[in-house]
C-alpha cells in the first residue's frame, strides 16, 4: 500500500466513523421503511454499504454527501435482495426504479435518506407496547444508538448470546407479527409517548445509578440516554413531555461529578458540592423546562424536571424552596399516583414542615415500600431529628440490610456512625 493509499483509507475511515456516529440511525430508519419493517434486512443492506464505502472511497474519493451515498448504495442492496423476496417485491421495484443509473450518478446523488418521520417511526417501533419493556430498552440502544449486542450485554451485565437472541427475536417479532413501522396518530400519541419516554429514562438510569457495580468497559448509558432524549426532543419539538424528559435527564446528569465522593460513596443532594455541578447542563435544562411549561400542560416528566430544577437552581441546600417542591409532588401524585413519589414527597414535607409531619407522611407507605431501603433511611432521619435514637438506629439497620449496592451500603453505614457519634458523645 502506498502512502497516499493509506491516507485515502484513513480519510475514508474517519468520514465513515463520523457518518456512523451521526447519521446511522436516520439511514437505518429510512432503510427499515423501504424494507417494509424488516430490521435485519435493513441492517444487512446498511452494513454492505459501509463495506462498499471502505473499498471505494479510498480509490475514487469521498463523495460530497457521504450519508446520501451510503443511503443510495444501501437502498440498492436492499432492492437487489428484495427482488428475490416475494413479500417485498413491490417495494423493491419501486426503489429500483428510483435508483437506476451508474456509479457516477450515485457519487453525487442526493436522495431523501429519511427525514424526521423515519426517525420517529424507528423510535416508536422500538418502544412498541407489544415488546417487553426490557426489550424496548435493548432494541432502542441497538437500532437508535447503534450499540451492538456485545456492548449492550456489557452495560446490563448479561450474557452476550442472550442479548443477541433478545434483539433477533424482537426484530423478527416486528416483522412476523406485523408491528407497523409508523408514527402513532395524534389520538394514539398520548398512550404511546410515555412508553418511549420511559424507555429512554431507563437507559439513562441504568448508566446513572450503575446499580450493579463497576463496569469500566461498558458504554456510558447516561450519555446515551441524554443523546436519545435530545434526539426525541428534536423530533417532537412541540411536545412538552419530550422537552421535560431531556430537561430531567440534564438536571440529573449535571450532578454526576458531585454524586459520588472519592471513595465512591453516594453523596446526598444537600451535602453535594454544588460547584461540581455542570452549570451548562443546568442552564440548558432550565431553558427546556421554561419552553415545556409555556404550553401550560404539565405532564409527569415536566413536573419531575421542575422538581429536579428546584434543587439545581437553589444556590445552596438551605435556599431550597421546599413548600414549592411539596406542591410539585402533589401535582405529580394527582396525575400519577405512586408510592415512591409519595415517599419523596414525605421527605420534602420533612424539610418544609418538620420531622413530625414527615414521620406522619411516611406512615402508611411501609406496606408497599417495606423492602425499599430509602424508606427506612427516611424514617431513620425523621426519628433522629425527633430525638429517638434507638428507633432511628433500628430503621437504619433495616435500610442497611436492604441496600442494593456498595455505594448505598456505605451511605447508610455512614449515617449509622453519625447517629452513634450523636448519642454516645463521639464513641462510634
Amino acid at each position: 500500500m502506498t502512502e497516499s493509499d493509506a491516507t485515502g483509507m484513513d480519510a475514508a475511515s474517519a468520514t465513515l466513523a463520523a457518518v456512523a456516529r451521526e447519521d446511522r440511525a436516520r439511514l437505518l430508519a429510512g432503510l427499515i421503511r423501504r424494507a417494509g419493517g424488516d430490521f435485519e434486512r435493513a441492517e444487512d443492506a446498511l452494513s454492505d454499504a459501509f463495506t462498499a464505502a471502505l473499498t471505494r472511497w479510498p480509490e475514487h474519493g469521498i463523495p460530497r454527501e457521504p450519508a446520501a451515498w451510503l443511503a443510495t448504495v444501501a437502498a440498492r442492496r436492499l432492492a437487489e435482495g428484495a427482488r428475490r423476496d416475494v413479500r417485498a417485491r413491490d417495494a423493491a421495484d419501486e426503489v429500483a426504479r428510483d435508483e437506476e443509473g451508474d456509479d457516477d450518478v450515485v457519487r453525487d446523488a442526493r436522495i431523501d435518506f429519511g427525514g424526521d418521520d423515519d426517525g420517529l417511526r424507528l423510535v416508536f417501533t422500538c418502544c412498541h407496547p407489544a415488546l417487553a419493556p426490557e426489550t424496548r430498552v435493548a432494541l432502542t440502544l441497538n437500532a437508535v444508538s447503534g450499540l451492538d449486542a456485545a456492548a449492550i450485554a456489557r452495560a446490563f451485565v448479561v450474557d452476550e448470546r442472550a442479548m443477541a437472541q433478545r434483539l433477533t427475536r424482537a426484530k423478527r417479532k416486528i416483522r412476523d407479527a406485523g408491528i407497523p413501522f409508523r408514527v402513532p396518530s395524534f389520538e394514539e400519541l398520548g398512550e404511546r409517548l410515555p412508553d418511549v419516554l420511559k424507555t429512554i429514562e431507563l437507559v439513562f438510569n441504568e448508566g446513572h445509578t450503575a446499580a450493579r457495580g463497576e463496569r469500566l468497559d461498558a458504554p456510558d448509558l447516561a450519555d446515551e440516554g441524554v443523546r436519545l432524549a435530545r434526539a426525541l426532543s428534536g423530533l417532537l419539538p412541540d411536545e412538552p413531555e419530550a422537552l421535560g424528559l431531556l430537561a430531567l435527564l440534564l438536571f440529573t446528569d449535571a450532578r454526576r461529578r458531585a454524586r459520588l465522593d472519592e471513595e465512591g460513596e453516594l453523596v446526598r443532594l444537600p451535602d453535594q458540592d454544588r460547584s461540581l455541578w455542570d452549570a451548562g447542563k443546568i442552564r440548558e435544562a432550565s431553558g427546556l423546562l421554561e419552553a415545556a411549561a409555556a404550553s401550560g400542560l404539565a405532564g409527569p416528566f415536566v413536573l419531575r424536571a421542575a422538581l429536579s430544577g428546584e434543587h439545581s437552581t437553589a444556590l445552596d441546600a438551605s435556599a431550597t424552596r421546599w413548600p414549592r417542591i411539596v406542591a410539585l409532588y402533589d401535582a405529580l401524585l394527582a396525575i400519577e399516583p405512586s408510592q415512591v413519589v409519595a415517599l419523596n414527597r414525605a421527605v420534602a414535607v420533612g424539610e418544609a414542615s418538620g420531622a413530625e409531619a414527615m414521620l406522619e407522611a411516611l406512615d402508611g407507605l411501609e406496606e408497599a415500600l417495606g423492602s425499599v431501603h430509602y424508606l427506612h433511611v427516611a424514617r431513620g432521619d425523621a426519628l433522629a431529628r425527633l430525638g429517638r435514637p434507638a428507633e432511628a438506629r433500628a430503621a437504619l439497620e433495616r435500610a442497611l440490610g436492604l441496600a442494593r449496592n456498595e455505594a448505598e451500603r456505605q451511605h447508610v453505614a455512614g449515617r449509622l456512625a453519625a447517629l452513634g457519634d450523636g448519642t454516645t458523645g463521639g464513641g462510634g
Partner: protein
Amino acid sequence: MQYLLMIYTAESVDDSLSAPEMGRLMENYDRFHGELEGAGALAGGARLRPVDTATSVRRRDGEFTLTDGPFAETKEQLGGYYLIEAASLDEAIEWAKKIPSVDLGTIEVRPIWPMEDDQLVTTDGSERADA
C-alpha cells in the same frame, strides 16, 4: 356440528426436525388436508407463527395491559377464537381489546403463517415447486 381441532406441539421439537422429516410431516399434512377437503369436512385452518410473535391483551380495572409473549395461565382455557383480517398488529390488538372477555380472561393475538411464506420442502430437501 362444527368442531375446532387444536394442534398442540412443542416448538422445540418442531425446530429439531431435519429437512426430510419436516418434508414428510408437510406431505402428511397435505394428505390430511386433501382428505378433509374431499370429504367436505374442511371449514378452515391455518398454521400459526411461533409463540415468539405472540402478544397477550387483557383489561383489569379498566386498564389495558399488553404482554410480550403467549398466554401462559394454566387455570384459564381456550374458549373461542376469531380469525380476522388486519393491516397490522396494532389493528389486530384494537380488535382484541373489543372482545368482551378481555375483562375476564386473556386474548392472545398470534399472526397466521401465510402459506406462500412457508418453507415447504419435499422429502429429498428440494424446494417444492407449488409452494
